[in-house]
């Protein structure tokens, strides 16, 4: 337990907060890698996932890719890419590795978000005279958001964890104090840095969990459309009635703004 105390002393000593390699600077580096890689991964993965989910072609391919990606050792991938692209290109190489890790969960989230929408909902939208683009933008994408954000949460979790390893190729980030501290047996430093990493990772996860709740249209639960009519017939209480009204309202609202 002494080590915990020493780690806290390290964590709260003034020298960790000024100059080169301070904790705020390492945190910023870490967040820049995380957000940069997540953004690039999303730009690549989400359109592909939506396309597969919308057309319904290639779904097994997405599931297979997600499974295979889990077997790829991320640490090895970073080192391999740095060697292949050259040490001078290590920022690009590390970003590519992080992007590759983020793509499968994001693609699976976008795909399953669209795939789980009941056909009857889409048919109803089409019967109302919506064009294919209106269906995508005002029905499918809003209803897919909860699962897409679930995928985003998975991707960020992966990337933020793996970004601790880029310090091994000399790129800083919050892993730096751990990777530099282990050979020196500075376990107060490694433990202190580990605590910072945990706080950062947990904060991002909590924020994304909150965002997932926030984007979930009322009447939809955990990405599943609840059968509001069935529940309505069981108990005709006021809250159920508002839930029943909301998905329609949601769609009409967005339809009005987009047309």
């Amino acid at each position: 337990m002494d080590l915990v105390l020493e780690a806290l002393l390290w964590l709260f000593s003034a020298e960790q907060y000024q100059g080169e390699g301070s904790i705020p600077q390492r945190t910023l580096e870490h967040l820049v890698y995380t957000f940069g890689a997540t953004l690039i991964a999303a730009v690549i993965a989400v359109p592909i996932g939506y396309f597969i989910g919308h057309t319904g072609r290639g779904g097994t391919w997405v599931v297979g890719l997600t499974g295979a990606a889990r077997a790829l050792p991320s640490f090895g991938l970073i080192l391999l890419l740095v060697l292949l692209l050259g040490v001078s290109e290590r920022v690009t190489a590390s970003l590519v590795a992080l992007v590759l890790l983020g793509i499968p969960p994001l693609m699976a989230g976008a795909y399953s978000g669209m795939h789980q929408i009941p056909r009857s909902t889409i048919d109803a939208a089409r019967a109302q005279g919506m064009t294919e683009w209106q269906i995508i933008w005002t029905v499918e994408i809003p209803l897919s958001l909860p699962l897409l954000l679930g995928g985003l949460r998975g991707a960020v979790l992966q990337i933020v964890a793996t970004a601790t390893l880029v310090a091994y190729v000399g790129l800083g980030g919050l892993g730096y104090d751990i990777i530099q501290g282990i050979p020196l047996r500075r376990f107060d430093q490694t433990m202190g840095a580990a605590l910072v990493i945990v706080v950062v990772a947990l904060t991002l996860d909590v924020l994304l969990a909150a965002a997932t709740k926030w984007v979930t249209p009322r009447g939809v639960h955990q990405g599943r459309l609840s059968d509001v009519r069935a529940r309505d017939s069981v108990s005709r209480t006021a809250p159920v009635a508002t839930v029943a009204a909301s998905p329609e309202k949601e769609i009409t609202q967005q339809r009005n703004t987009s047309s």
Partner: protein
Amino acid sequence: MEWFLANSSLVWSLTLDHMRISVIPIVVGFLISVPIGWLAQRFPATRGLVLGGVGILYTIPSLALFMILPPLLGISVLSEANVIIALTIYAVAIMVRTVADAFSSIEPQALRSATALGYAEWGRFFAVELPLAGPVLLAGLRVVAVSTVSLVTVGVLVGIQSLGYLFTDGFQRRIIPEVMTGVVMTFLVALLFDALLVVLGRVILPWSHVARQPAQAGA
């Protein structure tokens, strides 16, 4: 390939180390997860707490966990126990949610029929609930196996020999084929474990040939 052939004995012994270190977290993690997940599903009041708790554990990056565990458990950072316990925690973190889902996916009628046939609580668990939950449990275990095999490589940073050694050694000596061998061999070990679990599933769960694969872990 040349590098691989010249160093095949090193690669082979590291592969064996890698498998040995991977197996314990997979098996122990499974054995710990089944009761926890079952309890979470049996007593809905605890479900949110348990699933939230394992969710937090899964969020902790592996390198950070390797640093935090030793002082809490009184073991050395550079010990194999550290890596094995950390990976067991991840296995539990991934598996508990799947276990809870697996048991809650069982038709309540099946359970009531079993009770009506005279099964007591324990007998019903082993003879009815566990076999019916089997396919989903297997799918979860496959995810655990594959991600454990891949995470073992990070252990090299705390000095634990595995295929991850080929990453750091190859990187420092700038030998691309060595790092490549490490990545490919880790991938192959993961595939091997996955295939073994599929075969195991066919043998002990002959009534279900299609094990459902969850779309994503940890979400």
